[in-house]
């Protein structure tokens, strides 16, 4: 049975290879090949899942050894897979959501002449992501880790002719590279500490290592997680990543890849358990990010960026949970899964809206669309309810559990973290309601609003801060849009996801199914919040209502101005991602430019100058010495005479001394 594991990865990998090397002749069928292979992988996943359920919880983990990868001395890296409950959870999420989004993309990318390549990239992503979650050692995980990074790079920059897209792609890759440094250092530390970096041995041996080492490893892993999961301080890339086609945003930058960081932390549970400091830092990062993302989400008018902010924030919850240790791991993953459903759904919804609105992304130019695209409205609405944690929907369960766990952490930490989590919940409710209202309710602000020209991805308008070029596009656009519902191939995945986002949470929580399912891998400890679970739940609901209410006051009651008002200081800050990019630009980009420029100068004048200088000096010396050769025989005789004198003197001197 475990021999099937490789098949999980092989299918999409094959797809990628075929589609990318196949050339134009596959343009007609490319998208089908991609989708089928993704689905195939899903099927395999389901089969393995069924098989796994058959076994008793303790020995459900499967292992498949393919071949020895890098054997050098004590450094033994294998290509081997490990499929336990944790991996299985991800496999199903990835392949499932992945397949849905493949289907959706068939419709969404219909008019793009490079659709084949798009599906190739998607398959590549699936393969890499599966490798990431199936690897049985950190080095192989690293391969998947960078692999998804590459896929994300390719997909964000899919419309490469748009400078903004190319830049965003590059930015994403670079920021992730910073995280990767963390991962590679972590692996090196493991190697020098344990002599191996395979999950099993490392996690067993944690007891023998010093806490200092473990803390270091933990922090390095956290750094990696921050990069991949867009956590502060490495979150800056996610917003720009929305330059990519919407399905990409849904799959990679909402449902799966960005959650890899959480996977990494949970996977390394034992290390973190043994390194409290690392855990603390993790929780802090999570808390900060969930506020950061939420605040940013409140201010964005670009629907995708708003959702991106929310993604950031939700992952913040997961990281927070993961940082809480055994009391949080399970809920982190659970929230991850539910989030995978509803956030993917929301993005697909957003995509569908844009599809109907000539790829307009500015919510201020939406409004009252519920009548025009009912299915989108309903699915999106369900996703919305899920994410704000409307009782009974999946988001409610998962998020509530996390907040509980945060309080359960105990001590002031517990209070602070819990408080932050609650606040986050409120803000979430606020900005999601805002999105909802601005998009589907209120007056139809898109009337006699020239927006972007028909669904030509080439001219997909760049987000507002991309300035002149984008506004030209808008100006050049033709007439007002004619909102319409998307084709079935797009709506069906949305419906499926909506269903998921409604019931998943309940399904997992009833009888603590999910806890029992993951416990053997991650371990679980029941957290007891100081104020009691019920109270927490109550307050969660309360703040949610509060948030919704505020949002309605702001955007529901009075009309939304088409042109964004200047807004408060905070708003403006939030629009500019709390100036984080500006900081990067000034400090890193500018500084780097200066550094390189000065180094180029140094290399040319100093390092090279010394050499050329020596040569020039030689020439000069030669030129001067030449003068002695003045052509007069008598001066030659003088030099001979002098020479003879010196010779004699020297000889005599030698004898004297």
């Amino acid at each position: 049975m475990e021999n099937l594991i490789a098949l999980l990865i092989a299918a999409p990998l094959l797809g990628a290879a075929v589609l990318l090397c196949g050339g134009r002749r596959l343009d007609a069928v490319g998208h089908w090949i991609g989708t089928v292979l993704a689905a195939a992988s899903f099927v395999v996943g389901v089969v393995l899942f069924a098989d796994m359920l058959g076994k008793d919880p303790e020995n459900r983990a499967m292992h498949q050894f393919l071949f020895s990868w890098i054997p050098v001395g004590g450094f033994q890296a294998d290509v081997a897979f490990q499929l336990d409950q944790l991996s299985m959870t991800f496999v199903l999420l990835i392949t499932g959501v992945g397949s849905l989004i493949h289907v959706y993309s068939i419709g969404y990318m219909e008019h793009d002449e490079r659709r084949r390549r798009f599906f190739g990239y998607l398959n590549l992503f699936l393969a890499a992501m599966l490798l990431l979650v199936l690897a049985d050692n950190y080095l192989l995980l690293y391969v998947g880790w960078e692999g998804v990074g590459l896929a994300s790079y390719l997909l964000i920059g899919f419309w490469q002719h748009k400078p903004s897209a190319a830049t965003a792609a590059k930015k994403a890759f670079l920021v992730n590279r910073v995280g990767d440094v963390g991962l590679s250092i972590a692996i090196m530390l493991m190697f020098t500490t344990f002599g191996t970096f395979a999950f099993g041995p490392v996690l067993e041996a944690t007891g023998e290592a010093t806490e200092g080492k473990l803390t270091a490893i933990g922090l390095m892993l956290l750094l990696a997680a921050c990069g991949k999961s867009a956590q502060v301080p490495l979150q800056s890339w996610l917003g720009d990543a929305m330059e990519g086609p919407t399905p990409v945003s849904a799959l990679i930058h909402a449902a799966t890849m960005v959650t890899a960081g959480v996977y990494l932390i949970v996977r390394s549970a034992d290390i973190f358990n043994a390194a409290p400091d690392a855990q603390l830092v993790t929780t802090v990062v999570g808390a900060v990010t969930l506020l950061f993302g939420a605040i940013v989400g409140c201010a964005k008018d670009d629907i995708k960026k708003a959702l991106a902010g929310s993604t950031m924030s939700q992952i913040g919850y997961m990281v927070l949970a993961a940082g809480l240790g055994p009391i949080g791991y399970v809920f982190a993953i659970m929230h991850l899964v539910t989030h995978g459903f509803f956030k993917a759904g929301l993005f697909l919804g957003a995509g569908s809206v844009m599809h109907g609105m000539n790829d307009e992304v500015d919510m201020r130019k939406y409004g009252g669309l519920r009548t025009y695209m009912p299915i989108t409205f309903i699915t999106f609405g369900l996703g919305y309810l899920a994410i704000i944690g409307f009782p009974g929907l999946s988001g409610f369960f998962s998020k509530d559990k996390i907040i509980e766990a945060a309080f359960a952490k105990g001590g002031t930490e517990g209070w602070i973290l819990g408080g932050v989590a609650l606040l986050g919940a409120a803000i979430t409710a606020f900005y999601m309601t805002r999105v909802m209202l601005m998009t589907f309710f209120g007056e139809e602000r898109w009337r006699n609003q020239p927006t972007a020209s028909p669904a030509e991805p080439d001219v997909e308008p760049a987000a507002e801060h991309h300035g002149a070029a984008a506004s030209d596009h808008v100006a050049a656009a033709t007439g007002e849009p004619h909102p319409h519902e998307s084709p079935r191939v797009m709506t069906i995945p949305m419906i499926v996801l909506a269903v998921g986002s409604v019931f998943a949470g309940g399904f997992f929580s009833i009888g603590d199914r999910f806890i029992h399912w993951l416990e053997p891998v991650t371990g679980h400890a029941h957290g007891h919040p100081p104020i009691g679970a019920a109270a927490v739940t109550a307050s969660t609901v309360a703040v949610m209502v509060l948030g919704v209410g505020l949002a309605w006051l702001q955007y529901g009651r009075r009309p939304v101005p088409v042109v964004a008002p200047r807004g408060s200081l905070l708003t403006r800050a939030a629009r500019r991602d709390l100036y984080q990019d500006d900081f990067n630009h000034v400090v890193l980009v500018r500084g780097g430019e200066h550094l390189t420029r000065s180094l180029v100068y140094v290399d040319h004048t100093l390092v090279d100058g010394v050499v050329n200088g020596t040569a020039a000096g030689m020439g000069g010396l030669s030129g001067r010495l030449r003068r002695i050769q003045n052509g007069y025989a008598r001066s030659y005789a003088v030099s001979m005479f002098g020479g003879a004198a010196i010779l004699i003197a020297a000889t005599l001197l030698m004898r004297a001394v």
Partner: protein
Amino acid sequence: MNPVNYLYLAALLFTIGATGVLIRRNAIVVFMCVELMLNACNLALVAFSRMHGNLDGQIIAFFTMVVAAAEVVVGLAIIVSLFRSRHSASVDDASLMKL
């Protein structure tokens, strides 16, 4: 009389000749100075031969004269041809090639 004095004389003559070579411009004169140096050598040789009481030195002196004669032949030939083509026997004029 102490034969060493002859050596001093020889050294003196040699130096005079060398100085002449260094300071005189006319090729012929320069050449004559060289001859002077050779003869200084002869004097030294003869003196030494006298001191050591063997004939080698004097024999060398004869050879030197022959050599000097040969040098005169060659030297004059060259100098004269130079003079004819330049109408000047100054060694300083002959400085086409330098540096």
